């Protein structure tokens, strides 16, 4: 490797300049996308409100996480595997102690971690769920027809941090700084791709759910 004199050099780059670039693109992109939504605005509703907006809006953010029976009947695989993936992913992201340290250093928030064996198991389950999703996408004729390159890109940048994290945790690449550097780099790739793809749903879902709930609330309908 000519660019870096050794693996430590590479690790330092991923923790330094590369992180700054990635977090910069992530923030710029996300703000543009969110502002774009808000500045588009909605027409003023002149009708008399029949209920409140904030309460139902916030409730909807939570309640829409529950399984919808109609969706479950139509696509049980997507619902079950989707839940497994998201739960395991958040366990790995939020409860592995090195990750908590990162969040504490950058955002100042802190909470207790869990034993690394649980994180390890969750990583494996999350990877299996993602592989099952990919298999489903490739074998379901309608889904395959509807899939674009973006779907596969999003899958890849989501899968890589899990794979490299697993490799780094089990020290399957020597030397370790190379393994850790690759893991951090893969997350930076995810951060860069995030605002410009459907990964943005992790932010926009709050806006969309709130808006639906608030709109229904104003009309006095249960959402």
């Amino acid at each position: 490797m000519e660019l870096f004199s050794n693996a430590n050099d590479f690790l330092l780059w991923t923790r330094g300049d590369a992180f700054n670039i990635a977090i910069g693109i992530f923030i710029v992109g996300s703000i543009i996308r969110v502002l774009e939504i808000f500045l588009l605005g909605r027409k003023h509703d002149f009708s008399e409100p029949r209920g409140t907006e904030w309460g139902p809006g916030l409730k909807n953010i939570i309640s829409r996480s529950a399984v919808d029976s109609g969706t479950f009947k139509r696509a049980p695989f997507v619902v079950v595997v989707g839940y497994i993936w998201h739960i395991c992913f958040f366990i790995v992201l939020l409860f592995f102690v090195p990750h908590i340290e990162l969040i504490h250093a950058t955002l100042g928030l802190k909470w207790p971690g869990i034993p690394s064996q649980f994180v390890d198991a969750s990583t494996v389950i999350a990877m299996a769920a993602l592989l099952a999703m990919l298999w489903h996408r490739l074998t379901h004729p309608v889904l395959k027809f509807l899939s674009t390159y973006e779907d596969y890109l999003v899958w890849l940048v989501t899968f890589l941090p899990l794979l490299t994290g697993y490799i780094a945790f089990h020290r399957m690449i020597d030397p370790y700084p190379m393994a850790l550097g690759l893991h951090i780099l893969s997350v930076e790739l995810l951060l860069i791709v995030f605002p410009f793809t459907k990964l943005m749903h992790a932010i926009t879902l709050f806006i969309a759910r709130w808006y639906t709930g608030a709109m229904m609330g104003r009309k006095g309908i249960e959402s």
Partner: protein
Amino acid sequence: MNEQTLFELLQQQGVSRRGFLKYCTALTSLMALPASMIPTVAHALESARRPSVIWLSFQECTGCAESLLRSHSPTIEGLIFDHISLDYQHTLQAAAGDAAEHAREQAIKDNYGKYLVVVDGSIPLADPGYSTIAGMSNLDMLNETLTGAAAVIAVGTCSAYGGLPQADPNPTGAVSVSSLVKDKPVINVPGCPPIPTVITGVLAHYLTFGSIPELDSLGRPKVFYGQSIHDRCYRRPFYDKGLFAETFDDEGAKKGWCLYRLGCKGPMTYNACATLKWNQQTSWPVESGHGCLGCSEPDFWDAGSFYNALSIPDGDYTRAAGYAVATGVVLGAAVGFTNQKTKATAAAQHTNVTVDDFSLNKKNK
């Protein structure tokens, strides 16, 4: 000068055969060799003639030599070190000035092609004046001494990877031995300082086999640097259980929990401290309550704070994030207002469709 064998010298120092074999057994296991190799090691060490060693000290603090000499005494490691034929070491030798330099030249001449060169300290390339010995630049002395060397052992992180002198902004243009020496085998024995047993272990390997040990990608003997501190750390079970010391004097610290959150660099550091320990196997940094600094790794001085966890970004990310927020708001507003304008223009140009537009009569008119 080199007539006596090592074993004869050890006997003169009062080391029993039992003690000697015990050392050979420990050394054999240390070098990850099968137990059947013990007699080979013992025989090789018994009959080994004292190899000539020229020790060059460049930009260093003498800590590496101190580690070896003052470690604990008397030990067989120490005696082996005493009884290599150390023909030049400017801190230790009695001779000074021309006589000292003459000893080095004589050793090169007498043992041409067979002697070992030990280097501690980095070599300044920015200006030779930063470090000279007898009016000779470090680079010139290294090149001259290496002409007839069998191998070079870079002792300490400064000579192995540049170490402290090479730390940013590297005013002296310090470089490691391996970045200069391409035509001789270079064994890196990094550490700040390296473990004395590791230094003598490498010498013993050379005495036993007449060859250099197997090295990793950073030129370190795999037998001593093959495993990370983290993997051999006695606090590792706490890491896996998620039990961490939060400060140096909290309950967790007193209970011996993992020091990862306090900045321990054990996961990325390859060294033998966790198994060999220091001061006659008394303790080692992590056991004494402080995280590993990663001193046997390249760039360890530039790897951010010793007290930051390994997973924490190292750069000025707050500033990067600040700029990003400002840029995002400006660009987002620009995109948003452009969209509003597009929407307003579309609305302005919109014409309503009436039922007349669908009338056939209208077209016929």
